């Protein structure tokens, strides 16, 4: 870039990635900048990582289609059989056209083959009811109305964002009950992406903050008195450490707007306004550290004119001039600052990952701290070590010039800088370590445990680095102490001397041997809890290695690599994929989705980088988190918190699946036993397509007589009540792999339908061997025959559903008994009037006459009973689900939800709120995710300092500049309300009533 200034020669400056402003960047240190948009529209990373939305079809729909094919075959074969038999029958003399039943001239003239064809078509029309067309309507209705129950569920309501679950598609409700693989994002999904300073270790002594929080949430009410700081290390060390924390960062301070503070004070609810200080940093860890130091008495006041101001414990302001910032980068994994104290001392503070700090400090200092660091790491905290070094004037001069040279270098600038940094950051002395917790989402561990218990395999796909991700996995109990980790990362690949590819294959083979061949029980142990007996495996892979696996240098290996990889993954309870690009996430989902057995996958994520994965999976779940609406908009379901996933899958998913599976089977069944008698009747009416039932019955059967009970069932059924489903995750396995819509149950239902159809037809057939059924000797005709069969049919089919209903609400009662009553009423009505618009009064008084016959009553009763007998018998003989179902009754009236989970949730919530009261605005710039997240800015960025700059004209055009000014205000309001809420919930009042105050 050439820079032209008035009285100067044009200067050439290089532009690098660091000059790019990515989406969501916040402006600091300047009031305005000028920019040029470089990547827009479809060229943005976001767009490149975006996949087209494709139609998602549930497994149930696939089953329906398969069943439909079977029934279509049945239909066609029925029609073919009837047509064939018709012509066989007609070939006999005198059958086709007896004297009493002459054909019309037109019929006689019709060409023989055309006649055959029309006969075939008429049979198709006659039997077409076997294809449950109305099922599609009912299924759609069930899905549509059923999805409301997710929307309505109070347990999904999050008081924080004041929203419940969102259903974007109703097509996949039942798929929620079929999930085998869960792909979850880490940041924002498993964790809150909300760092908190937990403890530090100074000179080998542990410091743990116990004051404010312990009062609030009781989470860490433990042994020992409440101390601000347990003095163990020397005061100088302590203060040095805290100063280091205060100085070694790139955090910016943002003061609260004055008018806001005024308003806040009026209601008197705001504690400690002086702590209303917002920090902006590229990494949430840094904010956490600065805030942590603040708690121990060292407050970072800001950077002005290259001078960092901190207020120490004695409330004195200390000033340090910032000389150099040695930026963080993922290779060095540390950062440093060089500051000069007022007294002229030049100090270098360095903080970074233990692995990068330990080699650069004196070894004797390491041992004392390593213990703490390792313990913290296993607890799932992010640990950083802090070191310092005093620079002499000469040393500083050397560094100064070195850095200057390196910075101005046009070639190999990076390398030169790196070398300079490395040279500087040696010979330091270690002062301590910090532990920062990326707090898990509420009940994240419980949720994950429940999902694993339900037989789901959980894959964590994250853009984060491996260590962080791993510690999160431990914290979520995805990895446990006994879990054997199989690592396939760049690091393990480079351990060996051999080439990368060879090493990869070697490792794959080795892991495969360990996880697949040596552990057969995992495979078969679907029913037993896979983690309680056999060795459990966790698998870790990173993006680079994954690329190598997916696209090996030699194409021939691709399938081998892939199958090895898949087999390993399938035998691991948890797979962790770190350093993933969004498209890679989708790639993984796709790979699993298309693997053998095509398992149902679910993706859950909250950010834009999860969108492609959400779109790829069978079911995409968005979390209404802090990262915008991308995920929510592209998801199939959106829930406010991760913890809601448990109920969504275990309760809603399970129930929806059972409901819809039953609905589908029932529909096929009821149409089969509806049409079978009509088919059989053809054998007795000369294959003449004479319908057995009246046209009104044919039409109304699916529409009125039998539709409502199954609809009510499919909306309300709870074969196991929700509380039990939530408590026993293993119940989810019972319906795994589309258990209720496989060929076996389908065969069962079909056989049941055939059995009942035969029963109906032949039962009445034998009765009609003497059609004189009335006590006055009068006889019944063919319509009476059909009506008796139909009556038996309607009652049997409805009572069959009644037998299957395990959850009788008043709606079920009214639907079932109402339908039957409606049938009786309709039949009376239909037969009670000579309908002027009907050509034939076929059913005139047929039903009433039927009811006047004792024999008809008796045959109806016995046929219904006989048809249901095998069903009842099976139900009794089947191993009773005793204890599970029996527990239900007390749980019915439990309106308040599950009390135990509420009580455990409360402290966590409060912790969140109390934390936020410390800051007015907390803007987080996700460093880790940034690498992949970025959608490049496209507009000229102009905004005044102090206002939050919203991501300008990104491809999701989310904001305008005018609105930007309002945001701080809104934010403060929100903050206050959160505080209010936290107070409210503390005093066990309901939150909504207090909102009137604002």
């Amino acid at each position: 870039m050439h820079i032209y200034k008035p009285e100067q020669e044009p200067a050439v400056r290089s532009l690098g990635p660091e000059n790019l402003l990515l989406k969501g960047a916040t402006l600091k240190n300047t009031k305005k900048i000028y920019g040029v948009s470089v990547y827009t529209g479809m060229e943005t990373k976001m767009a490149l990582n975006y996949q087209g939305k494709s139609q998602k079809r549930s497994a149930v729909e696939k089953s329906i289609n398969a069943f439909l094919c079977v029934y279509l075959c049945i239909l066609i074969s029925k029609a073919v059989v009837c047509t064939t038999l018709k012509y066989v029958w007609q070939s006999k003399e005198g059958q086709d056209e007896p004297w009493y039943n002459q054909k019309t001239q037109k019929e006689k003239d019709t060409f023989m083959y055309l006649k055959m064809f029309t006969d075939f078509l008429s049979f198709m029309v006659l039997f077409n009811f076997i294809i449950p067309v109305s099922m599609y309507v009912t299924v759609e209705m069930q899905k549509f109305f059923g999805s409301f129950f997710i929307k309505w569920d109070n347990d999904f309501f999050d008081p924080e964002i004041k929203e419940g679950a969102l259903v974007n598609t109703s097509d996949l409700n039942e798929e929620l009950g079929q999930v085998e693989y869960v792909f979850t994002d880490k940041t924002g999904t498993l964790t809150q992406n909300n760092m908190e300073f937990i403890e530090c270790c100074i000179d080998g002594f542990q410091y743990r903050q116990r004051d404010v929080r312990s009062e609030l949430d009781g989470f860490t009410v433990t042994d020992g008195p409440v101390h601000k700081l347990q003095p163990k290390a020397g005061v100088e060390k302590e203060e040095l450490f805290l100063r280091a924390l205060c100085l070694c960062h790139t955090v910016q301070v943002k003061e609260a707007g004055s008018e806001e503070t005024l308003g806040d004070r009026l209601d008197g609810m705001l504690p400690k306004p002086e702590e209303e200080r917002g920090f902006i940093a590229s990494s949430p860890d840094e904010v956490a550290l600065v805030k942590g130091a603040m708690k121990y008495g060292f407050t970072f006041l800001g950077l002005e004119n290259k001078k960092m101001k901190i207020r120490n414990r004695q409330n004195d302001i200390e000033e340090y001039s910032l000389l150099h910032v040695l930026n963080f980068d993922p290779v060095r994994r540390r950062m440093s600052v060089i500051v000069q104290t007022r007294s002229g001392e030049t100090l270098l503070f360095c903080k970074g990952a233990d692995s990068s700090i330990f080699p650069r400090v004196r070894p004797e200092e390491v041992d004392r701290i390593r213990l703490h660091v390792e313990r913290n790491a296993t607890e799932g905290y992010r640990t950083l070590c802090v070191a310092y070094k005093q620079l002499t004037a000469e040393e500083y001069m050397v560094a100064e010039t070195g850095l200057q040279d390196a910075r101005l270098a046009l070639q190999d600038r990076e390398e030169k800088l790196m070398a300079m940094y490395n040279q500087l950051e040696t010979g330091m002395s270690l002062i301590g370590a910090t532990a920062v917790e990326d707090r898990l989402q509420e009940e994240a561990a419980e949720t994950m445990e429940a999902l694993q218990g339900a037989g789901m395999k959980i894959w964590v796909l994250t853009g984060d680095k491996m260590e962080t991700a791993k510690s999160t996995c431990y914290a979520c109990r995805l990895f446990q102490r006994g879990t054997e980790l199989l690592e396939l990362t760049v690091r393990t690949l480079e351990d060996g001397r051999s080439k990368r590819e060879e090493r990869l294959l070697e490792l794959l083979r080795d892991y495969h041997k360990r996880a697949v061949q040596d552990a057969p029980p995992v495979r078969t142990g679907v029913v037993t809890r896979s983690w309680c007996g056999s060795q459990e495996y966790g698998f870790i892979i990173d993006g680079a290695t994954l690329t190598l696996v997916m696209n090996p240098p030699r194409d021939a290996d691709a399938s081998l690599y892939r199958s090895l990889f898949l087999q390993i993954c399938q035998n691991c309870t948890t797979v962790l994929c770190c350093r993933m690009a969004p498209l890679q996430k989708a790639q993984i989902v796709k790979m699993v989705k298309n693997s053998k057995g095509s398992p149902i996958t679910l993706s859950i994520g909250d950010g834009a980088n999860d969108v492609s994965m959400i779109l790829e999976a069978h079911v995409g779940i968005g979390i209404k988190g802090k990262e915008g609406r991308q995920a929510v908009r592209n998801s199939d379901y959106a829930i406010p918190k991760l913890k809601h996933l448990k109920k969504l899958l275990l309760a809603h998913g399970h129930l929806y699946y059972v409901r819809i599976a039953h609905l589908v089977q029932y529909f096929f069944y009821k149409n089969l036993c509806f049409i079978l008698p009509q088919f059989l009747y053809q054998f007795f009416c000369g294959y003449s397509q004479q319908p057995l039932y009246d046209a009104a019955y044919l039409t109304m059967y699916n529409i009125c007589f039998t539709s409502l009970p199954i609809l009510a069932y499919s909306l309300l059924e709870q074969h196991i009540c929700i509380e039990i489903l939530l408590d026993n995750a293993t119940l989810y396995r019972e319906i795994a792999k589309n258990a209720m819509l496989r060929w076996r149950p389908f065969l069962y239902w079909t056989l049941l339908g055939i059995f009942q159809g035969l029963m109906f037809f032949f039962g009445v057939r034998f009765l009609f061997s003497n059609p004189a059924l009335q006590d006055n000797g009068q006889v019944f005709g063919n319509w009476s025959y059909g009506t008796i069969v139909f009556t038996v049919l309607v009652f049997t089919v409805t009572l069959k559903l009644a037998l299957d209903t395990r959850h009788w609400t008043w709606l079920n009662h009214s639907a079932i008994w109402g339908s039957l009553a409606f049938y009786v009423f309709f039949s009376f009505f239909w037969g009670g009037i000579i309908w002027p618009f009907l050509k034939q009064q076929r059913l005139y008084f047929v039903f009433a006459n039927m009811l006047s016959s004792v024999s008809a009553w008796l045959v109806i009763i016995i046929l219904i009973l006989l048809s249901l007998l095998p069903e009842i018998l099976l139900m009794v003989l089947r191993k009773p689900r005793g204890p599970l179902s029996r527990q239900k009754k007390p749980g019915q009236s439990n309106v308040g939800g599950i009390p135990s989970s509420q009580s455990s949730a409360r402290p966590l919530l409060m912790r969140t709120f109390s934390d936020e009261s410390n800051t007015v605005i907390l803007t987080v710039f996700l460093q880790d995710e940034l690498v992949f997240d970025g959608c490049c800015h496209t507009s000229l960025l102009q905004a005044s300092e102090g206002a939050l700059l919203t991501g300008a004209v990104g491809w999701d055009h989310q904001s305008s500049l005018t609105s930007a000014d309002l945001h701080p205000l809104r934010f403060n309001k929100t903050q206050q309300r959160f505080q209010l809420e936290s107070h409210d919930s503390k005093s066990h009042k309901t939150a909504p009533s207090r909102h009137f105050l604002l």
Partner: protein
Amino acid sequence: MMASSYNAKEEDGHHHPGSVGSGGPGGVKSKKPDNTAFKQQRLPAWQPILTAGTVLPAFFMIGLIFIPIGIGLFVTSNNIKEFEIDYTGVDMSSPCFNCSQNYSWNSTSSCSCSVPFTLDQAFESNVFMYYGLSNFYQNHRRYVKSRDDSQLNGDKSSLLNPSKECEPYRTSDKKQIAPCGAIANSLFNDTLELFYIHPNGSRFAINLVKTGIAWWTDKHVKFRNPAGGDGNLSIVFQDTSKPVNWRKPVYELDPNDPDNNGFINEDLIVWMRTAALPTFRKLYRIIQKKKDNMTPTLPPGDYILEVTYSILTINVTPDYPVRSFDGRKRVILSTISWMGGKNPFLGIAYITVGSVCFFLGVVLLFIHHKYGNRNNNADIPN
């Protein structure tokens, strides 16, 4: 990043003013779902569980109820007396053989034959006389639809313009047929008479009642003669033609009884109620029990069934021809019980089902007793 997205959410997410950030009075209106039992899927519900314990008594009950009903039905059915005479005349020896053959005979006279038979048992109470046809497809679709119910209901316009469904029995001699259609055209027209041969050789005609054989509603509502003509049906039907196979027009079906003539002739009505199966019987006459109640309606002894064949003009055959399609013609004399005619099926079915239920009950009881306790124990730790 957090800030920008957070705000964007408000703008694109929802439109009402009281969304998250504004905190105004509108904010109270949260999206919190109603806490109703229905929406939370917590409707009070009855949750029945079918276990051996609940089903066992039901099985025994069914058994205990059904077996007596079945026995009752079976006995009732067995007590019904039924006598069947096949008069098709297939065999040379059969008295009706001649009439059923294509004899060239004087077409003006009719052919008749007498079939003697003996009743071994007395028929008490009312005796119902049915005619039965076999292999006669009254339920053929072409046949079933070949009628015009509005014509039969006395509709004037339909009388003169019958439904197209009646083809090819809709018009003859350029006049509309009344009643039109294949069903009416093939009206059963054998005349059956019954004589009791007294032991002394004298022959008594048995009184056969023609009415009460059709459904009441059919006779009084569904079938009606067209109005007009001052009760003279020949005027009403003057513009119509008789069905081609009939010997006489519809208004001469029973000239002696105006309430049984024309469309409301019960023989016609009975015939018009199409049978369900190709082998069927239809009520023909009722022999009412004697008033004195002392002698049986039909005492045991010798009888003669006199069959008078009518001429079907379309055929050369004089009788009601069934032999062309291997049909059979029967006359059935039967008494009737509360359950209708003789049919052992229901009784057997009830006894069978009752026994099966009882047996299942016993088996289940056995299973329940033997394995039930173990099952319960095994379930509890779950």
